[in-house]
Structures are given as C-alpha cells and as structure tokens.
C-alpha cells in the first residue's frame, strides 16, 4: 500500500469527468470492434468456403463446362489489364488536375465550381458511370466494347479520389518550403517538381491504393464497356474484350446454373487477394518514402 497525499483525491466533479472519459473510451472501442467484425467475418467466410476451391490449376486454367469447372486465368489477367489501364489513365490526369488546383489555381469562381464538380463526380453511382462509358468511350470515341473503353470508364470513376488524395497531400507541404524555393529563383514548376511533389508521393500513393481498390472490384462500369462473359483467349491489345474477376464473380454467382458451391467463394477470395496484394505493394512503397520525409 502506498500512502496517497489526501490533497490529490479527486473532487466530485473530477470523479464525474473521469467516469465520462472512461465511458467514451469504452464506447469507441466497442464501435471499432463492431466495425471490424464484418471485415473479419467476410475474410473468414471466404477462406473457409473458398479455399477448398483454390489450387494452382484454378489460377492457370480457363473456365470449362459452362463455367462450372476449371479456373479463372483469363479473368485474373483481364482484371490486371483493366486495373493497370485505369491507373494509367486516372493517375496522370488526376495528379495533373490536383497540381493545377493546389499550386496554380486562384481562389475564384471557376476553381470553386471545379471543386464542387469533383466532389459530385465522386458521388455518381457506378451504373451511371457505366452508361456514360458506353456513350462516351464505346460509341462516341469508337473504342468499341474493349479494355480501353472499360479502363477509361473506371478511370473517370476513380479520378475524384485520385485528385482529392493528391491535392490534400500537396497542400500538406508547408508554404515555407515553396517560398524558400521561390526565393532561390525557382519557377513555380521547378518548385513543384523538386520540392513539393517529392514530399507528396505518399499521398499520391494513397490515391493509387484507393483507385486500385475500386477499379479491381467494380462490376457495373465494365459490364457494358469491355468485360465479356467468356473469352478463352487472353487479350492481345487494349481493343480486345476481356473477362474480369468481378464480372466473373457476378456471373458464377447469379447467371450460371449448377455451379459447385465453393466456386464463387474461391473467385471472391482471389478478387480480395488481388486488391490486398496491390494495396500492400503501394503501402510498402509509401512506408519506405515516409521514412525519408521529415520536417
């Protein structure tokens, strides 16, 4: 037993505030656990019910016998094409727009209108993006139903995320850095290229992660713009149609009969695996850069 100085005893008011503080801490802990449960539940369900379907052949075979047997090879490769394609379009456009908005644009009506448009673009349902993609890329730009059209549609859908993530990271770079660079005689662009961008890479990678997660998982935007129900051959150019994991999952879950019960779960497991591994790469990259960023 230690002797506590009596003057440190909590008053009634202090007692109450400590009780309240403890209650809130527990409440937030509880909420966090409740939120984590579905994630863990999904992963557990997929692992338990899907892993019997996994094998090397499952990754490397074409679907056979009306989708009820065989593997997912063309869909896996197709998803990679679509995701890389979406990134290749969304990243340069999004970063360029974010640089303009953060570093060049004045605070005027046009800028505010663009910002509102970006926020609203993020809220557009994916099926609307799909219809836009059909109109704009498949027909108007004459890409046809193709990887290119589907990638562009995914890119438009993910652009707001890339723009917002990049803009936030650009604005997190202290203004003093810019002014120090300007006073050395650097132009705005030299300042952006040498000082601002290198310190925003981790934020841009956050945009990449969000972009990849959405592009890999979305089904609606690619259904009408480039994803095929069944193509045994791998795409040879961006003008080919392709299978995709998300669309394949939709098909084996709802469109095809006599599918063995483990098959959709196995496809879903691979889909999540692709998202997680792509994200893990970006996160690892980001952590390495974070280690260098200090001010």
């Amino acid at each position, binding site marked *: 037993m230690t002797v506590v100085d009596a003057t440190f005893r909590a008053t009634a008011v202090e007692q109450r505030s400590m009780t309240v503080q403890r209650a809130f801490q527990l409440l937030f802990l509880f909420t966090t656990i409740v939120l984590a449960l579905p994630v863990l539940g999904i992963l557990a369900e997929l692992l338990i019910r899907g892993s019997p379907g996994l094998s090397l052949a499952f990754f490397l075979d074409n679907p056979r016998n009306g989708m009820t047997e065989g593997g997912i090879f063309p869909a896996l490769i197709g998803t990679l094409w679509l995701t890389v394609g979406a990134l290749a379009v969304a990243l340069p456009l999004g970063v360029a727009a974010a640089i303009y908005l953060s570093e060049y644009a*004045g*605070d005027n009506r046009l800028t505010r209108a663009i910002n509102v448009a970006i926020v609203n673009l993020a809220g557009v349902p994916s099926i609307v993006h799909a219809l836009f993609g059909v109109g704009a890329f498949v027909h108007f730009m004459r890409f046809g139903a193709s990887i290119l059209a589907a990638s562009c549609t995914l890119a438009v859908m993910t652009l707001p995320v890339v723009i917002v993530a990049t803009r936030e990271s650009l604005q997190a770079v*202290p203004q*003093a*850095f*810019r*002014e*120090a*660079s*300007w*006073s*050395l*005689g*650097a*132009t*705005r662009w*030299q300042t952006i290229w*040498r*000082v601002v961008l*290198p*310190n925003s890479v981790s934020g841009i990678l956050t945009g990449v992660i969000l972009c990849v997660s959405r592009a890999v998982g979305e089904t609606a935007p690619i259904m009408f713009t480039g994803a095929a129900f069944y193509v045994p051959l791998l795409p040879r150019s961006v003008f080919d149609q392709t299978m995709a994991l998300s669309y394949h999952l939709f098909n084996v879950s709802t469109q095809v009969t006599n599918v063995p019960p483990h098959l959709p779960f196995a496809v879903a497991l691979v889909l999540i695996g692709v998202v997680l591994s792509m994200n893990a790469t970006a996160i690892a990259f980001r952590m390495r850069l974070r280690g*260098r*960023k*200090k*001010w």
Partner: protein
Amino acid sequence: MVIEQDAVVDVPMLQVEDLAIHYGQKAALQGVSLAVRSNEIFGIIGPANAGKTSFLRALNRMSDFVAGMRVAGRIRFAGRDLAAIENVYALRRRIGVVSPLPVGLPLSIYDNVALAPRLRGVRERAELDEIVERCLRRAALWDEVKDRLQSLGSMLSGGQQQRLTIARALSQEPLLLLLDEFSIAVDPVTTMRIEEVLKELRQEMTIVLVTNLVQQARRLADRTAFFLAGRCLEVAPTEELFSGTVQDQRTRDYVEGRYG
C-alpha cells in the same frame, strides 16, 4: 577589361520610395521611403505587425506569387526599377533570403545548397562540389556536416538548419542578403557565430537585417530603421539611435525597452 554589370557603386543598393503593401484590403505597410547603401548592414527593428517581414517580401517580389499581396510605390534595386525587371527569377537569384524559422528543404544537405546553382544551370559535379563546400564553410557549418552531406537537411538541429539556410542563400551569390529574425530558433552560441559570419559577408554584399532583438541591431547594423504599425518612423546611424539623439519619442522608448 571586364565590365562588372552588377557592381553599381555610385547608387544605393536599394532606393525605396513611398512603398505601400496591402494584403487584400488590409494595409501592412504605408509610406515607407528609405535607402540602403551598398555593403552596409541595414537593421530594421520594430514590434510585431510593424510590416518588417512584408518589407522584405516586397524586395524579392514575393507578391508575384502570393495571392492577395499588392505592392505600390517604387523600389530601385542596384539602380533598376524592381517592378520593371522582366525576369523575376534572375532577380531573386541575386537576393538571398533567410526566414525566421529555418527551412531545411527536405532534400539532402548537399542538394539544399546545390539547388540554386542547379537552377541557374550549373551541371558540373566538380563545380557544384566546390560551391557546396565554399558556402557551407562560410556559413560555419562545413565541419559539422562534411561527413554526411547526403543526409536530409531537414533532419539537422534548428541552429544547423538555419546555417544551412544561410549557406543556401550564399550559393545564389547574392548582391543582397535579407535576414528575417534569423535567430528566433537558434541558440545564443550559434547566433554569435552567425553574427560573425554576417560581419565578414558585409565585404561582399549588402545585408538587410530584420530583428526583434534591439541589441542585435546595435551589434551588427551600420544604420537602423524603426518600423511601427506599418510605418517607418526613423532611419538613423545605429549609434545615434541608441545614444538617444533621435527625434521620435516612440523610437527612444522602443530601443530603451520601454515600449509595449
């Protein structure tokens, strides 16, 4: 015979006439007229919000890049009308700036000092090496960092970063060096070392020293201006300012520590 175009000796380095600076509707500085001679250390003292920093920012035309900042009046820099200089980048390359809080750009120590030479087109590694060493030596930092030039400048201590900032400013080979309360984040020993450096630099360049340490102005400045609430109340040889022969009662109160 080599003609040094920049070495204009018979005109003041800076001739400021009726300078006014606004941020949006808010006036930061009004009706300032003064001249800074070549190769002098010109001190500017005054309490917060006197317009000292805004004055420095007008000298390298930061207003070009800062939204809402407007500069009126006339500044002549080495005889040239500042506002009429088309190449603002070349102008800024001749003006070194040291800000109150050290800004070690998150580049390596080497790249911090080599940035300005690279911007003006120096590519030769040997030449860059030479500039980096010379500037770090003159900023009294070389011995402390010579073995880790590739580590991050922003990882140095506050005092070291401030000397890095000075080295970076020197790498511009400035005609004019602007120091804005450089000792705020620096310990007294480092402050003294930097002050010694400044006394040497006076041989080669003109220095405008904004400081809120009255004694620092007394130690360093040849002439000193007193700014108060956006106006320049007094410009006098530093010794006169401190010997009580100045006109304005407010100046006398401030230098004697009776202000505010």
